[in-house]
């Protein structure tokens, strides 16, 4: 048995949002944004998290980052339960875990220069002192992400989308994190620039032994960058497997359908697509049993009664399905 705990372990994580209404503002519905999920992220790997919009990817990422409080469950970092830490402990955890978002612009203070944005974390965490030392370190970080020292005194609006994402990455790297959560970090970029940022993330991972939780809805990008991939549907994880195994041998009916609808840039390939009918059900009070059963071609009566557990069907390959699991 491998004794070392995973870098990050999520157990029984749930996040529910109440929808209130009526004159006593009573809860009238509950969104099960994340519904009892388990995840391990090993040191040095990239865990991809895919699924359609609203399935709970960002909520998972934010709970892990301790940006929002989970309704239930635990988050352990390097074997230590960090679900409820606060104060100095939480501040220290922020050095170990950083996050970058889809729209870097929204998270970059428009009135601060690049030097200020990237340097701020150095000051907060006392990683550099004195103007000279801070500036030297910022320049070093900018160069690491492919920007130049003459960008130091510019403002976010002077940069293109790809460059802004580099600024966000430089800011995240400033504290030398162990885990970087990338929430749709390349989704808004045009393909040529997207390729630049993906390559950069891969280079940085090799250089600094980083671990990534890579959240995205684009399955091609996730397959490319991930070591393992977890597929989410309506708040639950339905399948987890090494990236290649998941794409070569998807087991869950949802994963199969999702993969077969990804457009492939090869006009000679005439695929038989498995187009899913219908749309994801309402996340308010989702149906009992398997959340996918309303769209599933294989659904059986038991699927409506019992939620299938995520079980290991082959080494490293976990599926939550009564029929194919």
């Amino acid at each position, binding site marked *: 048995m491998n004794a070392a705990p995973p870098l990050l372990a999520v157990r029984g994580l749930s996040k529910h949002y109440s929808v209130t209404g009526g004159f006593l503002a009573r809860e009238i519905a509950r969104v099960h944004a994340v519904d009892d999920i388990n995840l391990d992220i090993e040191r040095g790997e990239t865990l991809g998290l895919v699924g*359609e919009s609203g399935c709970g990817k960002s909520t998972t990422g934010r709970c892990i980052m301790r940006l929002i409080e989970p309704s239930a469950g635990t988050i352990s970092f390097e074997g230590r339960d960090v679900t409820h830490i606060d104060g100095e402990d939480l501040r220290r955890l922020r050095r170990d875990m950083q996050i970058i978002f889809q729209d870097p612009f929204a998270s970059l203070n428009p009135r601060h220069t690049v030097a200020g944005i990237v340097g701020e974390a150095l000051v907060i965490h006392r990683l550099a002192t004195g103007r000279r030392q801070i500036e030297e370190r910022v320049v070093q970080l900018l160069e690491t992400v492919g920007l130049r020292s003459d960008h130091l005194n510019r403002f976010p609006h002077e940069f293109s989308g790809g460059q802004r994402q580099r600024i966000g990455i430089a800011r995240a790297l400033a504290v030398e994190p162990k885990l970087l959560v990338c929430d749709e970090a390349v989704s808004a970029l045009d393909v040529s620039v*997207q390729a630049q940022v993906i390559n950069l993330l*891969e280079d940085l991972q090799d250089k600094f032994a980083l671990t990534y939780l890579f959240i995205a*809805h684009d399955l091609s990008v996730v397959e490319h960058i991930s070591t393992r991939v977890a597929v989410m549907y309506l708040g639950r994880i339905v399948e987890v497997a090494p990236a290649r195994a998941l*794409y070569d041998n998807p087991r869950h009916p949802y994963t199969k359908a999702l993969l077969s609808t990804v457009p492939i*840039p090869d006009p000679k390939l005439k695929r038989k*697509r498995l*187009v*899913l009918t219908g749309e994801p059900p309402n996340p308010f009070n989702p149906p009992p049993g398997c959340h996918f059963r309303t769209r599933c071609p294989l659904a059986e009566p038991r699927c409506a009664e019992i939620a299938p557990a995520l079980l290991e069907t082959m080494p490293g390959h976990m599926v939550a399905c009564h029929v194919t699991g």
Partner: protein
Amino acid sequence: MTERLLDIRDLRTWFNTDDGMVRAVDGVSLHVNRGETLAVVGESGSGKTVTARSVLKLIDMPPGRFAGGEILWRGRDLIPASNSEIDKIRAREIAMIFQEPMTALNPVYTVGDQIAEPLRAHENLSRRAALARAAELMRLVQIPDPERRVRDYPHQFSGGMRQRVVIAIAIACGPQLLIADEPTTALDVTIQAQILDLLNDMKARFGMAIMLITHAMGVVAENADRVVVMYAGKVVEAAPVEELFANPRHPYTQGLIRAIPRVDAKAQHRTRLAQIPGTVPSLINPPAGCRFAARCTFATDACVAAEPVLKPVGPDHTVACIL
């Protein structure tokens, strides 16, 4: 003989802004044949939307203006046409759908009334007959329970269902050309597949041509007959879809194709993606010569000296590159 339904020649649509003249579309030539799907692909800001909106004169003027060129619709130039002439062509001959279906729908009218509207305006149907047709069209675009749903308002539909409503409005009067500007970009991949299947089904059923604007090469490969690649307000390459992917000639097209990660490419997993260095140039005072030269690994002085023109390199295949 294939008939050129739409034939855009050397179109220039510019915008006057405080920072200077934005040459958003700057000498674009492309055509759509009867019954085909032409994909127009390129990164954001390359001029795809402005080109499409120019056809139906949906450009605000000012700040925009036509600085040159022709837009021939079945042989007739639309640029000098009057608004009432364009109104007649819009909906009945050329329809357009957009990325965000909500912008095309009026939140205070039922979807039934909105689908019925062009039928009443252009085909002189009574309200009752038009509403019955609306329900039929909703069935055609596979909206469940159409007789009941004609009375619903847009906000009662999901994003994918709204795009179906918009398609129903677009095809109501049987147009010969549907211009679809990123119709699936805002939708999830499973819904995207449903909408593209629906468009292809409508095309097969009615022989309607589609000008499909997209930035996704996978969508191009799976849906287009021919492809036009745009870069910084210009067409850099045009070819039948299989030819374009098998034999891309413009360095930008080559870069685009190689930069996309593919789910089906086993060998590619975690190998470096081909990347195009740099970013797109400003369209205010764009660089002289080839607009891609600054990002092109093959560029020579000659590329900057003179602007390359589209020239044939094979059957139906044109490229604007001096190499």
